[in-house]
């Protein structure tokens, strides 16, 4: 799809500007594709123009935005600068963000773009749950060290990976101080997907390459929140635009600057000079007791926290 002529690109953009939609017959220009996967008709018809110049009506449910191609994915969504705010006071380790992200990105069960850590900054301080996506840094180490430009920073602040260029040297994984990146060690069945590859979707995964949280720019283009933000039952994750100064978790919307000011927002390990675009609100006035996050977890997940000082302490108390 990236081999398209520039003229094609331009004419397509003009199409979109005019509010017209390219037709189901214009798969080659990539704006819309008829998936035929959606069940049922919405009843809402959309007029589309086919390559042969005919106007035809197609049901809305049969159309989805085609994923952005590899070359276009370098550019970023015009006029945007994405930011995420994570409210630690509300997180109770429900792990819906992790699961929905895995589903959305067609990830195998043992690969997580979003991770939830049990954090305790020092012995006597309070523990808290710490969801960690990619920080989409403004000074990204991963981008600096990549020898082939397979990972890149876009105008809208998003750091993406082109899995069809990545050579799998894993230098970015050692460069990232936040352990954000994951490697596709094995070709997994879960990667398989009938959609064409797009760096904006990170789907389908490619064996022997690196992938990570992508801030879901494909959803942003449709005006939707990332999978993690819309999945969170507590509304922990806010997503928005730093230039428009607005963030939302789907139910509440805040002025970003006011939220950060009133709630003492901060960036994790900002001292490393990476300039992250993910902000945290400290876990004060919590909505849930911390321990609640340990309930009802899969055995595998519970095991992850076994060696943390907090859980070890808990066990010691029990045995006494």
């Amino acid at each position, binding site marked *: 799809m990236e081999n398209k002529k520039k003229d094609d690109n331009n004419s397509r953009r003009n199409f979109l500007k005019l509010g017209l939609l390219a037709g189901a017959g214009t798969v080659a220009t990539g704006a819309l594709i008829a998936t035929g996967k959606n069940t049922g008709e919405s009843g809402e018809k959309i007029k589309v123009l086919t390559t042969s110049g005919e106007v035809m009506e197609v049901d809305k449910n049969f159309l989805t935005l085609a994923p952005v191609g590899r070359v276009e994915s370098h550019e970023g969504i015009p006029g945007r600068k994405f930011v995420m705010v994570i409210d630690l006071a509300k997180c109770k380790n429900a792990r819906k963000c992790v699961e929905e992200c895995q589903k959305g990105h067609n990830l195998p069960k043992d690969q997580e773009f979003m991770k939830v850590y049990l954090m305790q900054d020092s012995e006597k301080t309070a523990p808290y749950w710490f969801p960690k996506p990619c920080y989409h840094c403004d000074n990204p180490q991963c981008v600096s060290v990549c020898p082939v430009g397979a990972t890149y920073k876009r105008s809208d602040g998003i750091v993406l990976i082109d899995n069809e260029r990545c050579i799998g040297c*894993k*230098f970015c994984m050692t460069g990232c101080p936040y352990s954000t990146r994951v490697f596709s060690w094995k070709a997994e069945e879960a990667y398989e997907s009938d959609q064409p590859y797009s760096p904006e979707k990170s789907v389908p995964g490619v*064996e022997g390459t690196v992938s990570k949280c992508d801030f879901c720019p494909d959803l942003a283009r449709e005006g939707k929140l990332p999978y993690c933000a819309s999945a969170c039952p507590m509304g922990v994750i806010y997503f928005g635009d730093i230039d428009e100064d607005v963030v939302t978790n789907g139910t509440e919307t805040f002025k970003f600057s006011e939220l950060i000011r009133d709630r003492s927002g901060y960036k994790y390990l900002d001292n490393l000079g990476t300039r992250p675009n993910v902000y945290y609100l400290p876990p004060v006035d919590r909505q849930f007791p911390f321990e609640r996050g340990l309930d009802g977890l899969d055995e595998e997940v519970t095991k*992850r926290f076994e060696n*943390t000082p907090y859980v070890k302490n808990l066990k010691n108390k029990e045995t006494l």
Partner: protein
Amino acid sequence: MSDTASSNILLREFAPQIERTGTLGKLWITFLIGVVLLGFFALYWQVSRGHIVTGMRDNVVWGVYIVNFIFFMGISYAGALISGALHLFHAEWRKPIIRMAEFITIISLLIGPGFIMMCIGRLDRLPNLILFGRIQSPITWDVIAISTDIFGCILFLYLALLRDLAKLRDFDELKVPNWKKKMYKILAIGYTGTPEQQLRLKKSTDIMAGMVIAIAIIVYSVLAWIFSVTLQPGWHSTIFGPYFVIAAVYSGTGVLIVAMYFFRKVYHLEEHITLKHFVNIGVIMLVLAAFFGYFTFSEYLTKWYGSEKNDEQLIAILFKDYYSLFILSNYIGVLVPLIVVGFKKLRTINNITIAAFIVIIALWLNRYLIVVPTLESPYLPIQESRDAWAHYSATWVEWSLTAGGVALFCLLFTLASKMIPIVQVSDLKEEPKEAGDIYLR
């Protein structure tokens, strides 16, 4: 005695090495080929099944492949710095061992980069390094530096070989297959030893000796920067460049001494390679041991004394999980050469060789301890239920490839010694064997 006559005597002495291979030699070569094939099988296994067959996982993304890469690039220093520096200082005693040093350089330079390729997830996309190369990435620096180094070192070795190739071409008594004779003739590119040719050769060799030293320092610093430009607590260090350079030459001397020992035994070079050579290279090794110990000490002392949270975590792992390896690599690996070479009574060929062998092992471990524990102690705590993802341990695939690499090194070294005398014939003259240029009397 004329020059030709004296070198003909020497050629007669060295000819059997090139002319035939004994049963033991053949067994040795077969064994090495077997191990190399095992390595190739492991490579096939890894390529067909994916990197899941290695011990590397999302936390420890680099394992023994990178360690081997650093290690082989390190020993390539034996030739570059040792032969280059000794050439420039006109150390006459270097002559019988310089060829070995240069062979070590070339062979390890060819094997080293192979290991980094095994670490790459998509070998099929290797051309991307050239097609889409970004000069901002230290890996690109490495690609440029290593290819320059290989080219420079091959040139340096070739210049040194030229006179011997001409001698072999002109030596009629040599009983070798015709293809070998043809090879000598082509490679000697018409060198006959006219005064003009000699002068040109000397000039070029002098220039290349200086060049290979400079290039080798750059290559090894760039390699160190791959680690130190990242923010990882164990790697983000300003002394990594010089530290790696010193460690590299140090391991290079170790390999050179072991090579000297075996070639002396197998090819009966007792007359040419004497205790003097072991002691002299041993002294260089001793000086480097001191430097290496000093760098290691400064590196860990500052981390431990300052005990910044993440440094403290790394030191804790090093002294808990990796305690015995740490002692072996950074204590024993420094102290043994200091003691063995430092005390005259201990300074025997066998002892120095054992010390050199310990140095080789210690330096490999030193790199392992730089790479793996750092990746096991990232800024964010590792919270993993799968033990293999939290702690690295190499699998049979990685060990087979490592063994294959070592075997390939020995194999190429053996084969090279079957093509060209392992001692620079044209440089040796019949001279009193116990010349006075021994270090540390």
